[in-house]
């Protein structure tokens, strides 16, 4: 496959990421904004504000245009990266077609970049988190992501190696188990950050964090679905692989 295909896939990845970002905006506005607003209310009532008098950007703008800017830029940029990961994964993680590779890529990125790091360093609503430790928390957050991505890549390599000897099923279960164990060890050794202020409602924290991981789950599910269709149309014009499931279904008719 040549550079023109890579370019076409990159454009489609950014497009799919932006489309996913539109869904995410609606979800984040409807499900995520109520807990953010409530947390800002708590922050103001308890005097843990940002420490600046006049709000540079009003809450009304933050929750609409500001939120849209963030999720659309995030969606487009991660969509481009997702497409590049897809290009590398294609034909290297097993005998998967374009659509299955797109789905596995999206799932892999969600688990390694978002889900596992979230279990150790979940997103915090306003009012939670000491501003003095922002440097340490940011460093640990990105360290955890880098570590989990590395462990995910190693797990795929392990699975590919074992598949030749043990078969795909056993290899997948073993590699997944090794990944979970390694992640658990990483979590046990990295320092924990617990900076929830006294009196912050536990239910509100749960609601916010559920919305936060929901945002990423939706982003990557939608990206995988949309990009899978676009990539399949580009790479497999005129239908699925002749030996794929659709061909078998057609032959059985």
């Amino acid at each position, binding site marked *: *496959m*040549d*550079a023109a*295909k*890579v*370019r076409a896939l990159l454009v489609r990845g950014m497009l799919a990421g932006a489309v996913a970002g539109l869904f995410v905006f609606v979800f984040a506005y409807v499900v995520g*904004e109520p807990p*953010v607003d409530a947390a800002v209310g708590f922050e103001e009532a308890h005097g843990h504000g*940002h420490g*600046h008098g006049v*709000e*540079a*950007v009003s809450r009304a*703008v*933050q*929750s609409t*245009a*500001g939120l*849209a*800017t*963030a*999720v659309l*830029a*995030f969606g487009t*940029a*991660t969509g*481009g*990266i997702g497409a*590049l990961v897809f*290009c590398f994964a*294609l*034909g*290297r993680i097993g005998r998967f*077609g374009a659509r299955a590779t797109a789905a596995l890529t999206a799932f892999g990125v969600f688990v390694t970049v*978002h889900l596992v790091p*979230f279990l150790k*360093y979940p*997103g*915090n609503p*306003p009012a939670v*988190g000491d501003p003095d430790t*922002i*440097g340490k*928390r*940011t*460093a640990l957050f990105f360290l955890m992501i880098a570590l989990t991505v590395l462990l995910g890549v190693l797990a795929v390599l392990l699975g590919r190696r074992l598949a030749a000897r043990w078969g795909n099923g056993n290899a997948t279960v073993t590699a997944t188990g090794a990944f979970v164990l390694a992640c658990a060890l990483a979590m046990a050794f990295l320092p924990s950050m617990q900076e929830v202020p006294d009196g912050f409602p536990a239910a509100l924290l749960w609601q916010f964090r559920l919305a*936060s*991981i929901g*945002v990423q789950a939706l982003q990557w599910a939608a990206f995988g679905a949309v990009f899978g269709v676009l990539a399949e149309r580009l*790479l*497999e*014009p*005129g*239908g*699925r692989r*002749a*030996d794929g499931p*659709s*061909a078998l279904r*057609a032959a059985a008719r």
Partner: protein
Amino acid sequence: MAESAITPAPLPSADLAKVPVRTLLPWAAFFGLLMLIVLYFVGAEQGATSLIAGENVHEWLHDGRHLLGFPCH
């Protein structure tokens, strides 16, 4: 897609063909970096580190930053 599968086309190898690393590398290096810079501005600018003075970037992206899971402040 049924009609195309009735007369099995020669196996399209595109889906199983790997993209050579040499082809992918310039794209990954340039656009990968560009995307990471965008993500830095969405997720971390005027948080732990600051390239632009003030808090306007932080304030504008505030809600998205929280909900996307980045450490905000």
